[in-house]
């Protein structure tokens, strides 16, 4: 596991977020987990807006864990923005679904989601899912911008 990995977790449910973070931490994922509670904040972070103003936006997170149901802007909304924007579209996105069915719904949007994990996030599944992405490792091997 590379050293500097930044995970942007977008999850409105406290419990779900907590379990995810614990799961990841337990496995000593030496990571920086940034937790945002809604879609708007997710985008603010990514593009350095409002409370995240001043953040160097070129320092994009290594992976985005995206929950679907969030207040203000929901997961798909965030996804759309991410994939639209030059700055962010290369970032692997892992959708957190609460069921297999949800996965189907999302797939129909054809928004170029990289991976899905059904909550609760099982670390094993998590890393499998990340490895599915493929180029995560490549990115890690490249010097971070």
């Amino acid at each position: 596991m590379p050293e500097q990995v930044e995970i942007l977790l977008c999850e409105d449910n406290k419990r779900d977020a907590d379990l995810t973070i614990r799961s990841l931490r337990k496995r000593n994922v030496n990571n920086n987990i940034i937790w945002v509670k809604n879609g708007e904040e997710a985008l603010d972070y990514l593009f350095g807006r409002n409370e995240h103003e001043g953040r160097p936006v070129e320092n994009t997170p290594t992976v985005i864990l995206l929950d679907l149901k969030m207040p203000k802007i929901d997961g798909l909304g965030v996804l759309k923005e991410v994939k639209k924007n030059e700055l962010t579209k290369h970032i692997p996105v892992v959708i957190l679904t609460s069921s297999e069915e949800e996965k189907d719904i999302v797939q129909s949007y054809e928004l170029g989601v990289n991976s899905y994990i059904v909550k609760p996030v099982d670390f094993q599944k998590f890393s499998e899912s990340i490895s599915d992405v493929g180029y995560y490792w490549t990115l890690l091997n490249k010097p971070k911008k």
Partner: protein
Amino acid sequence: MNNAGIFFEKNPNPMWVFAKSTLKIKAVNKAALDFYGYSEEEMLSLTLKDLRPKSEIGKLNKEIEKNQQGFSNAGTWLHQKKNGEQLYMRILSYPINWHGKECKLIVAQDLTEQKGIEKLLADEKEEYEIIAQNFPGTYYVFDEEGDLKRWNKKLEEITGYTNSEIKEMTPLGFIALSERDKVQDSVKKAFNSGSSEIESLLLTKEGKEIPFYFKTSKAVLHGKPHLIGVGVDISPLVKAREELKLLYENEKAERERTEILNNSLKLMNKVGTIFASENDLKIALDKIACLLTEDVSDICSMYLSKNEKLNRIAHHAASKEIEELAAKIREQYPDLMMNINLFNQVLEKGEAILQTDFNESQIEDFNLHSNPQKMVKKLGIKSFFLLPLNARKKTVGVLVLVIVDANRQFFSNDEYFLQELSDKIALHIINLEIEENLRSLNVTLEERVQTRTQQLEESNQELESFSYSVSHDLRAPLRAIAGYSNLLLEDHQQDMNDEGKEFLKIVHDETQRMGELIDKLLAFSRMGRTEKTEQTISMNLLVDSSIEKVKQSFPEKNIHFEVEELPEVTIDTRLMMQVWINLLDNAVKYYKPEDEPLVQVTSQLSEENNNIIFSIRDFGVGFDMKYSDKLFGVFQRLHSDDEFEGTGIGLALAQRIIKRHGGKIWAESEEGKGSTFYFTLPYK
């Protein structure tokens, strides 16, 4: 011999001399001897009497008495020859003095031939007489003055006049008075042209008139033109003629009746055509009204009764004037019809009223006020026919036919045919009503169906959303319970005793189970919502994929799958995968833990060749067929969780999917031996 001697001797006619007093023959010539067949001696010994047959002697004596005074011509006498042959002789006698005696000189001439001719003539005459008298008709001869010269007995017999009466009559007297001029002309014609014939009436003495046929032709009798005619009693002929005439008239009447009937049929046909070709009932009825004013009456109107009112639905008049009059009446007195009793009568009783020979005074019966009455009078109604429009035991209206033309009339045939027509019209009207009712009912039904469907859809939607949100929202806390209880197990082992750990494990397991239940429930509910997307695919591909998944679920088991070659199917791949996974899962699951599962998948075509039957056979624990109907119920299980885990929704889901594909699913089993699950898919 001197001349006198030659004259006597050589005379070819028999001659003799006899004494007046004694009648003795004194001298005789050769011709006499030859003729009578005597010798001279014999003949000189005879008297006159000997020359006569015995039957004539009486006559002779009388003659002699008469002739004492003297005569010159003796006439015709029947003489007898020596051989007995009798013949007529013409006797010429002359008184002479013969040797001092008074004698007669006789010259005799054989009249046989003459007599023969005379007899012939007499016979012929008799024959003609008989023929004439027995002529099978009358015959008559008369001249230009009208003098009847000859006629036969038949004339007397038939007319009853006597011979003497007829003598005094003229031909016209035998003719019936009414015919005399005609016959007179015929007679004239006959005298002019030579012939004529005429049929007339013979008048008998009693005054009876007999049909007779007279044929006359002109002939000249004694230098004067006469008409010779024949009359034949033609009474039987006349009778036959009359009968024929009657027959002909009957036939004509029959033909006319048939024609009328034909016309009625044609009319009905036309009406039928109008009804068949015209969609709009009102237009059809107007056309029919027009038709009726051509063939039947001068005015035709149809009224429907609705709510105590009579509404006119069709109308036609034969001429413009009538139309205008009728229109005026209608304009000023639109409710005229209601006031006329006759209409109500027709409506109530449902029977027709036919009035021929309508006369003006009958308008009083209509109970109209003076003004409308005047206008109606103006129409000049000659006859009318009110027919009820009957259908389904109701009288829905009236068909009014009016004739104003004196030359037109309703025929007796019309009644039957017009009633049929009215019934037909009524039927159409009723049918239309029914149709309209149906239509509006349909519309209402449609609307209701739409509303219901909408309601159902909404209800369905609600249900779907409900189950969706239930399962979704239920999941969130479930995740927390599962997650934290897991963490507890992982991170706080040392804080708990065995029992505590045990409890926590149970909590965790149950949350897992709940999650599964929710998942399955969600999947089941989604089944109704999702669109089925079909593709044609080899079933083997699906089965193989499903087998892979199932193998993953039971990593510890060593499963043997035997799959036959399966046909291509057109199905929703995703849904059908679910079915296979569920069925194969079950097939593998329901084994004793120590046994190695064997699952056989086969297929065959159904008997009727319209379905493919797939079968999944296992040799596991099986189930009691007694409970087979519970197999496919939601959350129904035939085993407890201790025996085999499961949610009880897998088969329900499979059934739902199979049903959606138009198939059936069922199972057979024997406890301890295993089970076979079958499902069908339509074979295309």
